């Protein structure tokens, strides 16, 4: 089904999809972001039946359907790197100038690793199991970026 290309008078229109938007964070998300923003506390939720602490928090355990919305657990602002990647391509959705490091960090007190930015470390020095701590943002964005990044514990 190969056809000859006729590109005479063919016009390409430049467009842009941009849409300001307001999202409700949800009841659980609201509690999470308020604690992060106002108290620099990272909250997870515990499922007692599954004996598991989840972060980000959620209302319902997807494994056993238990209602978790009141089972808040305050996590430590420290944890360990379990996985990482160095983002080296540049793109407009990326929050940092590249290269920057995205890591999966298992916070102390949580069972599910949280993805976040790892900084103040040389790429060659990153090791699985490395101990890190949260550095909070000076200005709130009311998102997960109220933690600016994680850095190695000196």
């Amino acid at each position, binding site marked *: *089904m190969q056809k000859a290309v006729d590109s005479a008078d*063919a016009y390409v229109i430049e467009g842009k999809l941009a849409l300001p*938007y307001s999202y409700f964070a949800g009841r659980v998300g609201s509690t999470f972001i308020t604690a992060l923003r106002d108290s620099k506390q990272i909250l997870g939720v515990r499922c007692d039946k599954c004996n598991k602490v989840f*972060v980000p928090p959620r209302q319902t355990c997807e494994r056993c359907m238990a209602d978790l919305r009141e089972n808040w657990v305050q996590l430590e602002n420290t944890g360990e790197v379990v996985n990482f990647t160095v*983002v080296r391509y540049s793109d407009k959705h990326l*929050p940092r100038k590249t290269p920057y490091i995205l890591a999966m960090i298992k916070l102390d007190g949580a069972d*599910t690793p949280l993805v976040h930015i790892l900084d103040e470390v040389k790429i060659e020095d990153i090791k699985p199991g490395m101990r890190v701590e949260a550095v909070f943002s000076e200005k709130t964005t009311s998102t997960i970026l109220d933690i600016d990044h994680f850095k190695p514990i000196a």
Partner: protein
Amino acid sequence: MSRRVAVCATAQIKNEPDIWYQRFQGMLFDCFESIVSQTGVTFDMEKGIRNVVTCSDDVFDARTISDNGLTDVVGAHFRGEEKTAQDGINGIGYAMASILSGHDDIILLIGHCKESQPESRHMCTNLAFDPFYCRPLGLDFLNASAFQARAYMEKSGITEEHLARVVVRSRQMAAKNPYARKNKMVTEQEVMKSPMLSDPIRELHAYPLTDWAAGMLLCCEERAHEFTDNPVFVTGFGSCMDSYFLGDRDLTDNFALKKAASRAYQMAGVQNPKDAFDMVELNDSYAYQLPMWAEGAGLVEEGEGRRWIENGGMEANHVNTSGGMLNGNPVMLGGLARALEAVHQLRGEAGDRQVEGAKKALAHGTTGPAGQHHAVLILEK
């Protein structure tokens, strides 16, 4: 299964890096015309197509309800039209359900994606993440897969050398496929030296940006003879969605693929997937995924992906004779492309890459970051 579903025809345009000179409607119309001319199928409301399943993505098309811009060119006006916003292989499962339920005899399935249209496909896949916990970090399908690649390579012992073999072979196979994206041949050394995109994924480990459209006519077994002398039958389908948050998953356990495969195998009566298939198409967006999905689909024992590559398993299992997604298909259509290749093979129409006497094939598709959703399709001659 009392009734079977037949694939009566397929159509596709060539995979290309930038089909700027044709609207996606035109790409689809080429596929549509081909299917109508191959089969003589009509849009008669008694005897013809009463329902069309389309596959497209709102963000890649920059158009909400992306299907409403194309229904007229695929014969979907004044009848049923249903869109799948997942990999198009799920549209085959959906068509199968429509036909087996008796709701319809014939389904036209047709899909498109132009990755060249947005400024960046990674900006599009960033929007697949929630706006609160994940999107602000810059997560997209590429860097999410990098976590999986690192974890799987560590667990399996797969090295840069193994990945290079996967990439080199993909391009060699694709060179025999007239519909495949035309890529430069590469050596293992070139793969291992290609720029790092998101460690450990290098540029040549990632599927290249691609535009494509494809279609398929599906029909109940009793009426297949009206449209083809060479039907291929859908005998199994299964799909499974894994957890959303990357940290909720064990990124290397192939949970969703194993579930999808076991459902498809149960339906098709497949006892031992290791020797059940004459050819297999796996949806490898990134090189590490080929051995990983081979393990998940049960083609090799868990943890044997490395030895499978070393011992010529890709050749022995006739895996990705099309070149695979790794050679270039757009997101949303990787699994549909796998299914089209399986149909070509089973019909004996695969030209220089024909697997002689192929009677039974597996085609696989994924949707979402790091293989969150998997679909497995079994096709038989």
